[in-house]
């Protein structure tokens, strides 16, 4: 037996685990096949698909260049404003919660309870919050802002915690050694470490909130979702096309810009 054969035999035998994984996956797959059914697909479907495509290619230009409050530019700005304000409020509210749930600062039980609360906040879909806040503020973008703030808190504090737990404590020790006060330690030792990463997280969340904000319109919480669903229910495909086009463009641009800013922030 030569050296190559020996080396080959040293290779760990993973065949069993591969087979098991594939086996389990196929069982799950077969179990879930029942969600696919074609009885509801009518001939209408292809016609509508074609209409949507035609609508996307021939968008309603008058709607795109309409500068009044019913036009797409204003709706997009409103959607952005909802996401922006929601992100800011959420980002501020998440800071204390993050410190409360950081297990290296707080006692374990408190950290655990806050974490559980955050999981619950994170799991409840945005639409449910939207409907609840509409009872508070009435329909409109304000409800959207409150919803966005609440849904942002969950993820933001989870990501904040990771940053807080990774804080470089040696800087603080050396600052203490040269006699800095507590405020100076926070200002020059902790703050510079946190700001860039926190900002990067917040910008990432803004990106996500923008997508979610487009959905909130479906429940009447402002933004571009409501006109979209009205246009679809009325089969006005060129309007649908115009709205989708605006939406895609906005999200692509915001994603591009936010990615640029984030790489700059993280790399310094």
């Amino acid at each position, binding site marked *: 037996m030569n050296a190559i054969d020996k080396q080959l035999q040293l290779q760990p035998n993973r065949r069993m685990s591969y087979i098991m994984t594939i086996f389990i996956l196929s069982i*799950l797959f077969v179990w879930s096949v029942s969600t696919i059914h074609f009885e509801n697909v009518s001939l209408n479907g292809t016609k*509508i698909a074609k209409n949507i495509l035609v609508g996307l290619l021939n968008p309603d230009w008058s709607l795109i260049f309409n500068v009044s409050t019913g036009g797409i530019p204003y709706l997009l700005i409103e959607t952005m404003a909802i996401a922006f304000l929601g992100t800011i409020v959420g980002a501020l509210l998440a800071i204390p919660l993050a410190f409360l749930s950081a297990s290296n600062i707080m006692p374990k039980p408190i950290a655990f309870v806050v974490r559980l609360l955050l999981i619950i906040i994170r799991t409840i879909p945005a639409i449910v919050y939207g409907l609840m806040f509409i009872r508070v503020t009435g329909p409109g973008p*304000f409800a959207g802002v409150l919803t966005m703030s609440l849904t942002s808190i969950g993820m933001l504090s989870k990501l904040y915690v990771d940053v807080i737990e990774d804080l470089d404590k040696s800087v603080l020790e050396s600052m203490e050694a040269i006699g800095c006060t507590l405020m100076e330690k926070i200002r020059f030792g902790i703050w510079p470490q946190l700001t860039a990463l926190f900002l990067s997280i917040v910008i990432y969340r803004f990106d996500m909130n923008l997508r979610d904000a487009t959905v909130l319109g479906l429940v009447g919480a402002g933004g571009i979702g409501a006109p979209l669903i009205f246009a679809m229910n009325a089969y006005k495909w060129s309007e649908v096309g115009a709205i989708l086009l605006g939406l895609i463009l906005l999200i692509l641009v915001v994603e591009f810009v936010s990615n640029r800013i984030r790489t700059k922030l993280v790399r310094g």
Partner: protein
Amino acid sequence: MQWKLLSQKKIVLPNGKEVLEKRSIMPLMWLILLLLTFLSIRITNFSIEVIVNRISQFFVIIQQMIPPNWTYLSKLWQPLFDTIKMSLFGSILGAICALPIAMLAATNITKNKWITTSSKFILSLLRTLPTLIVALIATFIFGLGTMAGTIAIFLFTIAYVGKLLYEQIENVDMKAYEAMYSMGLTTIQAFRYAIMPQILPNYLSTSLFCFEGNVRYASILGYVGAGGIGLLLNESLGWRSYANVGMILLMLVCTVFIIETTSEYLRKKLM
């Protein structure tokens, strides 16, 4: 805040050398941020007054949710399993389909620039549209029911897994691939034996993570008629039977928690 914007700070060192401190753009950033916040407040009619006066309404609803209506539980299992099935099917199929698309989009595997650029463009286009809106469109095309939701999740999974996958493929160690390629293996064969082992753990972990998120999304897809537990959620919210809503949310939180814990465990093992 540092208002050094207007004057560049000059520091004279003990040896007589002058050092200019760089201007900070932070004040400008804060100013823009404040301006945008102010504008957003104007546009969205944000008012603290309304929150203070009427926030109790929010807690009234929460109070009605507790305790949840336990008798409603028996009706929930079927839609809940539908939701899980939707995200499972969409995620598995989407993750499988994402692999060839990611191969086409990776510049180190596919040499044709047109193909890579257009695949990347399609992936980012699919990713821009929120799942709920894709589901809404799908209900018009595929009819009401779980099919539409599955399609929406399938498309989102392709976009998400595909993007992360091609980024990984572009960052792999190409030496083994090139060696195999020069020995006469085809692109697919070389990919299978040189690149797959490198990306497989990450690929599986990304797919699992995507599945986790998909369960969350799938739970609201019913809102636009795309099947699953969202349908009941919409109904109960519409009738203002908040005890039922509480039950649905409780089930959702439990399901998501179980799936998240399992997938986190599996992902840790993969890494």
